[in-house]
């Protein structure tokens, strides 16, 4: 029964990956034929089966850009840049989207250099480093039982702090991927609320604006804008990166 289940699971995985590959090729073909709406549909179906397909995310952003849906283009290109923080071509594409929206600005990463560096090293690299340090530390602990020396103990202490740092970095890198702190306004314009009772302010947020999630209120979400100001908006009005 178990074998049957394994075979069925394997067959299903192969089938879905083949379907995803087929949709990807269709998307490429349609995009090259400038049929962006159809191409967007194909790339979206690829992401349904493999949400972390970076090429599909990039191509989707690119298609939205050429289709003049700048908010969504910025969203997907930001998602792509989150996974590839140093891709200059994607940064240029976002700048193009800003230009199309009439915004005179260039793209800046919402994440700190430390966060990006920790992620770029790779979550599993930190994990492997932690395990290696743990093995070295274990060896030194064992040696210290054999013969207690000041040097050995000092080295153990140093390795202990290094191991803790690697563990924290591994945790931070994992959190970076799952992080949904930032969101993009994908609609032309969304209202800003004065309070949870539905009263509106005169201000709105335009397409392409990036906001940082602070907290949830009863009916809305509180976000921080790029200038540092806070605003109350509907969570359905934005899409998280």
């Amino acid at each position: 029964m178990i074998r049957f289940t394994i075979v069925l699971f394997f067959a299903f995985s192969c089938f879905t990956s083949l379907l995803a590959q087929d949709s990807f090729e269709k998307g490429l073909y349609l995009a090259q034929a400038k049929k962006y709406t159809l191409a967007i549909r194909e790339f979206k179906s690829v992401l349904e089966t493999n949400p972390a397909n970076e090429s599909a995310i990039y191509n989707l952003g690119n298609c939205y850009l050429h289709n003049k849906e700048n908010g969504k283009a910025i969203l997907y290109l930001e998602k792509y840049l989150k996974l590839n923080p140093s891709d200059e071509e994607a940064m240029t594409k976002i700048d193009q989207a800003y230009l199309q929206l009439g915004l005179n600005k260039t793209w800046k990463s919402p994440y700190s250099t430390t966060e990006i560096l920790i992620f770029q090293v790779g979550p599993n690299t930190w994990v492997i480093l932690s395990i290696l340090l743990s093995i070295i530390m274990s060896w030194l602990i064992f040696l210290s039982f054999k013969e207690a020396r000041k040097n050995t103990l000092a080295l153990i202490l140093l390795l202990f702090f290094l191991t803790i740092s690697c563990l924290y970095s591994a945790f931070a890198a994992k959190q970076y991927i799952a992080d949904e702190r930032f969101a993009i306004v994908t609609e032309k314009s969304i209202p800003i609320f004065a309070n949870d009772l539905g009263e509106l302010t005169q201000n709105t947020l335009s397409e392409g604006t990036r906001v940082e999630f602070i907290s949830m209120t009863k009916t809305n979400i509180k976000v921080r804008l790029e200038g540092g100001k806070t605003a109350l908006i509907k969570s359905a009005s934005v899409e998280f990166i």
Partner: protein
Amino acid sequence: MKLVALHITLLLSALTCLCQKPMVLLDVSPKDGEVGEILTITIKSNVQGELNVEMPSGFVHGYNVLNGMEQEMDYNTGKLVTYYYMSQTGAMNKEGSFSFGPAYIKKGNKVYRSNKVTVNIKKEQQENHTGTNISAKQLRQPAFGVIETSKSSIYEGEPLIVNAKIYSRFRPTELENYESYSLNGVVDKHDIGNAQRIFYEEIKIKGITLNTFTHDKKVVFPTGTGKTDIEPFKLILRRNFESIPLTSAETTFEIKPLPGNAPKDFTGGVGTYSISRKLGQANLKQGDVFTLVVEVTGIGNLHNIHEPKLNLPKGFILYGDPIVKEDFVFGARGAEGKITYEFNVQVTKFGELNLTGTSMSYFDPTKERYVTIRTGDDKIEVEKNDKFNLTVSSENESDENQAKEEIISLRPNENTKTPQSMYGTKAFWIAFGSPLCLAFLFGIWFKQKKEKQVIEGAVKKAKSSQKEIEAIFDQASISAKSGDHSNSYRLVEKGLQQAISVFLQSEHLVLTNRNELTQQLSSRNIASENINVLFQLLDRCEYVRFGFGETADSSTTIDQAKNWVSQNLRG
């Protein structure tokens, strides 16, 4: 003689009776078939009456029911016998062995019964073919359809000709309720060469003459890669008042991906193409805008190609999008004709300028490779125009050209998956924690082992020391027996010193320092009277060493020393 005549009469009467016996004969054809295959049930009888046939469950009655009669001469009686026929078609909807009949004919009060026929029905065999293979099952049917494709395997973008082909044993008078075949996900399809009239062709397959005609011919341009199914077509053929529904078999074809090393100027064309270029104006001045007409002629997916890149050198600026004129038709080879692109180009430099040729690449499916074609270069003489104000710097020209010619830059499917972080998983904590745990466990074990070794060493050392001391006292006894009491007392003193040294774990013990010795022995819980006994023994040994009491018997002293050691210094 009378007897002979009587026998002949009786024989003839018997024969007559036999020949005129009511007969009901049931036949089913074929006796071995497949699920869904048409079966013909025929009942032949010389009796006319109410007919009832027992059919097995799972039998689906067909449309055709034929009744008829014919007369035959019975040569035995010389009479004409009338036979009545009833024929019905149908099919079984499940596999197995089924019994047809018996058929009953009721005439008046009498019921006449036929034989039974057993038919074996097998599971329907899946037939997937490109339209060229016709199965035995299909040949047994009065009419069948296949979907024909020009190729079983094409390249991405290559045209495919698809048509319905119908084979029948008769010439249908009409075609009704036609439902076309469908290709999953294919939207780019064009009807070609469909005539309003049906043109038959007579062919022979395995000795069977069939009338065949094609219908619903299309040229399609499938997208994507891999195997694609073509769903069957359905129709009803009419032969006078008879209707024969048929559903074709489905078919598949494969779409192969284009090779990955496409040249940069690949326009998406699959087929055969040629390119030519013409300049609109001959005499140009600096700043003039002239038309550059590029004509792409070809057969294949002409309607889907992109405009070729001009790759204008410095000194030429492209203005706007080109005017595109399409002149092609869809035929049996795909889209055939030409597309003309009229570009507007401004010349910003003067002098003898070389306009490099326009190139494009296409994929030739017969050669199975990319082919690059190119127009020739054009030499243009441009007069200097002092009034022309070059507003765009030469460094920006190529950027503008780049921007205007920009096509969407896509990434290929590397299918990268962001690796799942191992942090927090059970495997991670086991890999991280187990070396530390093992280090502590082994360390503690190692330390305990070391301590044990030290203790064992000490015990061993004590035992060997004890043996040494006993050996010394034994030597003293031997000396005493041999009369060498001086040596005997010396050995006693030596034995006592060694015993106390071992007890106190002091290698450099000095017996003369009595105060210190008393302190040390007292600290090890040796009673003061026992210490005094020791000193007395030591004094006795001293007297002999200094020459006093040389002849004193040492045996008693030896025993006393031994006893003192065993009582006070054990443990």
